[in-house]
């Protein structure tokens, strides 16, 4: 991609202190996020998706610590800084004004005792924007963009809004200060189908109108298929495969990505040969050696207990798997089987 890179993550490692000892939740991951790009992080629960995003903006819960790595952020002026070195006021400014986040569970992210308007104005004020009229104008404009009735919602308390409306308020709030990057943690989980559709469409509109880059976490592959430009598969703290959405869905090279794809039904395919991934994710305190997926992997051989090679396929398509070629072959076979049906 020729677009400029806004976020370049290198060897980011995050660990938690637990009662049983230290645990590497994110195990040295690297990726680039380009201007205007949407990246989806997929993987089972506990794979480190949320920890990774929280690590990017220094919001790890107590006991969590960035062990090493760099998060190189390039602002609109072209200045690059390592977000991990930011402290105090600089970090506070970075959050929300440059990189904001929409948290999971919209019900809990809004203060129940203040009106939406005050939440918007407070957020702007905290970042030095005191011109109430201007902030209000911007907020109303954003509400229209996310398909909310601007006047009604602006003066409402959170409990007066439905779950889908609250989620849209949070999305509007996340772009209030015109950040370059928005992180979204399961933005449509627990929403009804039609509400989910509205959120997807709203996010697409915002992306097109504001030119923001997004990283979103989803356990739902269908949303990644629809929204993302690129997809990264995470397993047990590693990004095991990353690539453009079409390559990831049609030419997966890691057995785990293939396993995930093969586990979700598609509405428009009549009879599918689906299968779950056997077993469950490893204990992160003592993960398996080599490829961490190998105890569950149908392709695994003895060599998989050694660290997998990192292989590059199409442009920007990288997978860490000893048997990538066999996986690609198997994926092709499945795809043919489905298109015959």
């Amino acid at each position: 991609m020729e677009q400029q890179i806004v976020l370049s993550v290198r060897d980011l490692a995050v660990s938690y202190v637990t009662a049983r000892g230290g645990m590497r939740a994110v195990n040295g991951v690297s990726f680039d996020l380009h201007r205007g790009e949407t990246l989806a992080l997929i993987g089972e629960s506990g794979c480190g998706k949320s920890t990774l995003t929280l690590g990017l903006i220094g919001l790890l819960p107590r006991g969590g610590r960035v062990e090493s790595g760099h998060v190189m952020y390039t602002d609109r002026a072209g200045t690059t800084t390592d977000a991990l070195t930011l402290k105090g006021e600089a970090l506070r400014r970075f959050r929300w004004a440059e990189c904001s986040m929409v948290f999971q569970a919209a019900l809990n992210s809004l203060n129940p005792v203040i009106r939406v308007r005050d939440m918007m104005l407070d957020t702007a004020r905290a970042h030095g924007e005191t011109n109430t009229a201007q902030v209000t104008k911007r907020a109303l404009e954003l509400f229209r963009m996310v398909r909310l009735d601007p006047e009604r919602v602006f003066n409402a308390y959170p409990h007066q809004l439905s779950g889908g409306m609250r989620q849209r308020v949070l999305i509007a709030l996340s772009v209030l200060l015109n950040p370059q990057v928005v992180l979204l943690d399961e933005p449509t989980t627990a929403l009804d189908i039609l509400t989910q559709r509205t959120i997807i469409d709203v996010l697409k509109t915002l992306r097109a109108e504001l030119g923001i880059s997004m990283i979103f976490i989803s356990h739902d592959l269908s949303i990644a298929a629809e929204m993302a430009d690129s997809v990264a598969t995470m397993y047990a703290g590693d990004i095991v495969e990353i690539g453009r959405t079409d390559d990831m869905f049609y030419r997966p090279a890691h057995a785990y990505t293939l396993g995930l794809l093969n586990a979700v039904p598609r509405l428009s395919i009549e009879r599918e040969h689906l299968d779950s991934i056997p077993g469950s994710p490893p204990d992160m305190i003592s993960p398996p050696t080599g490829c961490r997926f190998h105890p569950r992997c149908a392709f695994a051989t003895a060599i998989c207990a050694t660290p997998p090679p990192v292989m590059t396929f199409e442009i920007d398509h990288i997978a860490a798997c000893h048997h990538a070629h066999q996986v690609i072959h198997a994926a092709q076979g499945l795809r043919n089987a489905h298109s015959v049906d």
Partner: protein
Amino acid sequence: MPTPLIELRGVHRTFKKDNQRIRVLQDIDLSVYADEILCLVGESGCGKTTTGKIIAGLLDPSSGAVLYENTPITALRRDEQAAYRRAVQIVHQDPFASLNPSHTVGQILSFPLVRHRMYKTRAEIRRRVWELLTLVDLTPPGDVVNKFPHQLSGGQRQRVSIARALTVNPRLIVADEAVSMVDVSIRISLLKTLQRLRETLGLTIVFITHDLALAKYFAWEGRIAVMYLGRVIEIGRTESIIHHPAHPYTRALIAAIPEADPSRTRSKERMMLRSEDIPTLTAIPPGCAFHPRCPYFVPTVCDRHVPVLSSVPEYEQHAACIPLAQGDRLIPYTADSR
């Protein structure tokens, strides 16, 4: 048509909340036939769980009747009543809440066997518990029988829930969002287990889900009933509902669902609703409850008359939509079409 195993006739159900009567189910006529898979599909608040609980006898209808093999359950003799209770079991959504955390898997599975006096000796009960665990693929049983629920993964817990439902040799299992709390990667294996049990034990399954793709996968040989705000608005064979949805609401759902296939999902035909607002159960719109959002709204018809499920010309399934039932083509509503 064979006699249904369970039939709901004109079932209404209201709940009281803050001195308000909330109509959760209105006029439900629904038959569940032996050996079939019936999916209840709909968004939250549509009444699918309430319907499942009424089928399972865990809730009584406010009015209307529930029939077990053609006899109203209120008219069953004491022993027949007990037989009905055993015949219909439920698997709940949340395996973290539905298993007693202070009992081992072995205890959870033996209690119903003891309570219903199904076996005489401890050895027989123990053998049956092992057999049940094997049935739900929790093998070897010795590894799980002495464990507590918190020592099991979500998927394993849900298997214990299924085994518990099987203890009393039921004929029908109501699976209420039984896989929605487990990771995507292991849902299919749970569904395969259910499917295999259905075939080997001759079970009937009422499968409640909000996920149409999952319903399609699980109930391809069965039927789907789509619910909206307390009513069944469309019912028919899975294939006809998925490929040729009739009711505008079902069409909207199918158009709205993203698919795990980039080119398919991006080229899908969209359907714009007239309103994004979801009506609440305390203020259900008059006439067809979907009319304020329906793109094919016909003024003075849809907002005045409650549609009933009926056959639709050119469709195999039944739908509750007045313009469709009259054989009219659905025409997008515009403000100037009166």
